[in-house]
């Protein structure tokens, strides 16, 4: 059986990631006080995307994983982006 490379993440990194996630959560709530009009969803989704990337990279260890898994996850992000673009070809031109 081939020996898999294991990466051990430090507590300090986890604590930092947690702090960043809490900050971004607070930011998500804070931005609801402002009216970005058509960009409201873009702002909310952008913050959410950053949070998702951090969770996947650190908590799910994908940062240290094989390229094939990074590609798979990247593909999913691309799919979501394309679905959003197509969806807004309706909402923005209605």
């Amino acid at each position, binding site marked *: 059986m081939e020996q898999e490379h294991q990466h051990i993440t430090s507590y300090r990194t986890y604590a930092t990631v947690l702090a960043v996630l809490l900050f971004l959560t607070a930011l998500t709530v804070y931005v609801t006080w402002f009216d970005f009009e058509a960009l409201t969803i873009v702002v909310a989704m952008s913050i959410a995307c950053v949070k998702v990337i951090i969770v996947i990279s650190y908590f799910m260890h994908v940062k240290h994983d094989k390229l094939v898994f990074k590609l798979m996850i990247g593909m999913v992000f691309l*799919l979501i982006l*394309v*679905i959003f673009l*197509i969806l807004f070809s*309706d909402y923005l*031109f209605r």
Partner: protein
Amino acid sequence: MDISAIDNSFLKHGTKYKGILGWLMSTDHKRIGLMYMYAIMIFFVVGGLLGGLMRLELFRPGQDYITAQTYNAVFTVHGVIMIFLVVIPGLAAVFGNILMPIMIGARDVAFPKLNLFSFYIYVLGAILAIASQFLGKGAPDTGWTFYAPYSTDTNTNVVAAVLAAFVLGFSSILTGLNFIVTIHRMRAPGMTWFKMPLFPWSLYATAWIQLLATPIVGITLLMIIAERWFKIGFFDPNLGGDPILFQHLFWIYSHPAVYVMILPAMGVITEIIPTFSQKRIFGYKAIVFSSVAIAAVGYLVWGHHMYTAGMSTTARWFFSLLTFIVAVPSAIKVFNWISTMYKGSINLQPPFYFTMAFVFNFMIGGLTGLVLGSLATDIHVHDTAFVVAHFHYIIFGGMGFAFLAAIHYWFPKIYGRMYNNKLANISCAFIFGGFTLLYFPQFIIGMQGMPRRYFDYLPQYEWAQVFSFFGAIVLAVGVIIMLFNLIKSARKGAIAGPNPWNGKTLEWTIASPPTVENFEEIPVITEGPYEYK
């Protein structure tokens, strides 16, 4: 008569438990696949009987046997059962489970316990779906699409039906996940991606759709429940919602779900044609890439269900363009199948007849799909019987016939026994004839303006409804003959031997039925899967 292969097979050995528990507790992919098959066949008969009830009501204009409200409930239940319990799990859960690990040279799927868990989730979803018909204030009457805002307002038992679809989605997601990992990690030594048979390839493309698209409909269905219970305004304009958003979210899943149904069907056909042509598949890589292309582009065409819903013109032409693009890889496959048969040694056996019926039906279903994908013509036939006919040509004529082809192709492998060829051919003729008589007239009256989901109609459409009724009877006779033949043969048919069709893929190199472990030794693959000399 040598029955030692059957005595040594997975049919007789499995877990430490005996009898029915030996099946219910088994993590053997073949037993799980068979349990899916028996469940699906029961639901198919139930859904078919409901379809027959609709045909009976439509035999004459006016109200005859059931009320309009009951008719609404019947077509909803027919749709929910057939879509969520029969065709979406259909080929992937049954033949994917039974054969995919064998075809890639593995002893089981990557997560056998998760596989059994998926089956139990399926059973739970099925119980909920059936219960939704009897609990609460009447069977749901929204149609299987649960369109908002009606589904958020109606007093019928929508929540249970929606919950059933939600639960069934998890079964689909977990099966997809299992198949992706299995295909990535458990292929036999030497089986590179381009030496893998095409049925597993089609399952791989399908599994990605199951994994990525199903959660969207899950959340959408929960949004319906949230709106009904907590008055959160997602879809109801009175609450600040947008009803078209529901249609977008629903079809973002449900259009790719059509490919969950049809891609494995194409995979089955791609296995059968080389075997019965005794010829290498034409354009292996073109078929692989067309499967992947269908899965990818199939994600992006959902809006063609919504041309008349009030979308922007920009979105409509964009969806129409994408719809025409997705027709290209489908057509590539048909050309490859025909080219494979060209100058082959055609062996006319029941699986091949069902396959030919598939290709014929799928061509009609596909080409009428272009009529619906085109903006101008869709406006004319939207929500008419034309759509009903197109849909059934793809799903029943396509996926359904592929299922029947698959069961006749792999029956000797699964049970170790052969069915009666003559009866199988007769049942194929009845099913194909009945199917055509049932659905083709619906194209004609659909173009003339017969709306779908109506329990009454103008007298000018009566001739077609009468044809369809008799078609349904012929079809039912064919199904009864087929079931009689297969059930009897599974117990008493002649011993089939390991390779009755002279197939080349790995399942034909092992005993029929396979042993619990499939292979005594995992094979080393040195050549492609269809190397007919």
